[in-house]
């Protein structure tokens, strides 16, 4: 039964032992924050931290699937900006329409990516670079380059601003559900095994008769849909569709996936470690903000870009070392 395996600590450690680094770093950073800042462990910081990072976590999960097949999706940031506008336009019809509408709009871009990559055989990064441009252009066209206010009278804003049972924000509940479902798909279905097999060797997967194209369509649809969901969160949390947002989100997602131990060449990967990677990246900036607030350092938004790049550099170096040593051992 899959459910019992989910809580088997030993199996978890075995399969995820490779990703022990990200978990240790996450726990260490949390302990550091708790020891150093008074309000770090407060409900307000925890809830707003998770609420803000829900967008990045969900995008990172989608990206993780694409990268496991050896592909990449550079369009997620623009697609999220596009779907935030779509969700804002649909918000008068309520959350029942705006949420699926935004996710479907994102999945539509995923379908375009899949068509270009599979039918037209265009390399993933070129195809998704093009949809990145198209989504950005599309978002600006349908919004007239303006932020589009959501309908405050409808129940749409509850999604980003209210909590389930007054405890957990709805965005976090939804992200958790997405993560659990996709984790189960990856770990316990033939589709998930095919995704990993493609990243290992696409030719071999084809020869084994695996449904390679179906799995590739799946990963780009998931990535687009996850980006769509992030756009819905964006519109609902900030009360507006924002066509100019999403710049650099694809990089945060790629960084989170890499930090989570997923190999960029594909074939290996984990949903849980990706979530941990996204949390770790978010936490680095949360802690930098606390330091800023203390006045001990003063970091502008520009420094944050430099730090983000530096962080990616360190992680890539470590991962390269790791794969090199494993290849030697193997």
């Amino acid at each position, binding site marked *: 039964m899959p459910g019992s395996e989910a809580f088997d600590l030993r199996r978890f450690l075995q399969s995820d032992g490779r990703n022990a680094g990200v978990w240790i770093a996450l726990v260490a950073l949390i302990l550091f924050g708790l020891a150093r800042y008074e309000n770090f462990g407060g409900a307000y910081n925890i809830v707003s931290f998770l609420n803000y990072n829900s967008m990045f976590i969900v995008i990172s999960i989608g990206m993780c699937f694409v990268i496991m097949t050896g592909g*990449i999706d550079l369009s997620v940031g623009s697609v999220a900006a596009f779907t935030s506008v779509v969700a804002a336009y649909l918000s008068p019809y309520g959350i029942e329409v705006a949420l699926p509408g935004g996710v479907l709009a994102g999945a539509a871009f995923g379908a375009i990516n899949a068509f*270009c990559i599979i039918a*037209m*055989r*265009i*390399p993933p*990064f*070129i*195809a998704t*670079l*093009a*949809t*990145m*441009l*198209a989504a*950005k*252009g*599309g978002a*600006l*066209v349908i919004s007239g*380059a303006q932020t589009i206010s959501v309908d405050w009278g409808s129940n749409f804003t509850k999604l980003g601003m209210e909590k389930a049972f007054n405890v957990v924000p709805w965005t976090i509940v939804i992200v958790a559900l997405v993560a659990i479902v996709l984790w189960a798909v990856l770990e316990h279905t033939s589709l998930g095994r095919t995704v990993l097999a493609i990243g290992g060797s696409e030719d071999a997967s084809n020869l084994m008769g695996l449904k390679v194209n179906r799995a590739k369509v799946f990963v780009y649809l998931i990535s687009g849909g996850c980006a769509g969901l992030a756009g819905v969160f964006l519109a609902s949390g900030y009360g507006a569709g924002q066509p100019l947002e999403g710049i*650099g989100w694809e*990089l945060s997602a*790629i960084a989170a996936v*890499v930090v989570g131990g997923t190999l*960029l*060449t594909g074939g290996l990967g984990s949903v849980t470690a990706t979530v941990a990677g996204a949390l770790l990246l978010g936490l680095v900036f949360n802690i930098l903000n606390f330091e800023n607030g203390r006045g001990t350092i003063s970091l*502008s*938004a*520009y*420094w*944050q*870009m*430099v*730090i*983000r*790049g*530096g962080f*990616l*550099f360190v992680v*890539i*170096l470590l991962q*390269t070392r790791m794969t*090199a040593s494993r290849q030697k051992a193997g």
Partner: protein
Amino acid sequence: MSDGSLSGGKAVSRTTPALSLSTLRTHGGLIALLLILVFNALFTPNFLQVQTLFVNISQVATIAIVAIGMTLVIATAGIDLSVGAVMALAGALAPLIFQSEFGTVYPALGIAAAFILPLIAAGLCGLFNGVMISYLNVQPIIATLILFISGRGIAQVLTNGNLQTFSNPYFSYLGTGKILGLPFQGWLALALAVAVYWLVSRTIFGRYLLAVGGNEKAARLSGAPVRMVKIGAYVLCAFLSGIAGLIVVAINSASDAARNGNLMELDAIAAAVVGGALLQGGRAPIFGAILGAIIIQLVKYTLLANGVEDEVALIAKAAIIVLAVYIQQARKE
């Protein structure tokens, strides 16, 4: 729309496969250029004027210079996403140098340093990319992502995010000067193209470059210094991006780290691919890249001059990139 034209292309290729596909590949760029020119001559107001020519030459020069470098990188089966960030970095450094205390006391030395130091910094960015890729075996798209993110950040940290304005006739010559009545940067782009063409077609470096892109393993076995060749390609690409960054700053008499070179990686990749570069490496059509840059620029200009919004132009550019890569990919089959 694109779907219809694609299936149309396939139908033609089925009846006369060799002819139509190869014509499209070898002369596609020229045919496209001709079509755009005829369209503009007929429909775009004021297209056949000297002013229009100047505007287009000065715009195309920066795309062309970066596209030449991108072509070298693509020839090694790599890609460089950091070109725009390197432009911003070089562009931010130059005014900082000639407006510094040293630069105002020794104007001549200041100007010289404002050309040389930013280009050295750009070259170092290329060295970073090249070492990551050839010694640490990081995929090019990921390795160049690092500077893509942090390069522009460094430029903004250096300038505190401010727009630097200046009036310096010597430095501005790079952007506004004219030789034989035509913009200086147009001549510069042409000179660089000739120099790089010579490098690719007449030197050992060029032969190794194409060999590395064609078959890296074979090149290594036959004794080509694969790592040095790759590093050379990324350094040259970054160096050329640095020149383009200086030109943009000189044209505007202002340096804006947030906007200089923004989305240039897309224009450069598009120009290189439209010009006939193969993403799997092995070809370095330098003058093709120039042709590609002209096409990209003319498409932008045509849309803008005919009142199409900038945003729609982004979608058109996306379609051009996909179509060009699709036509190039067909070559493999």
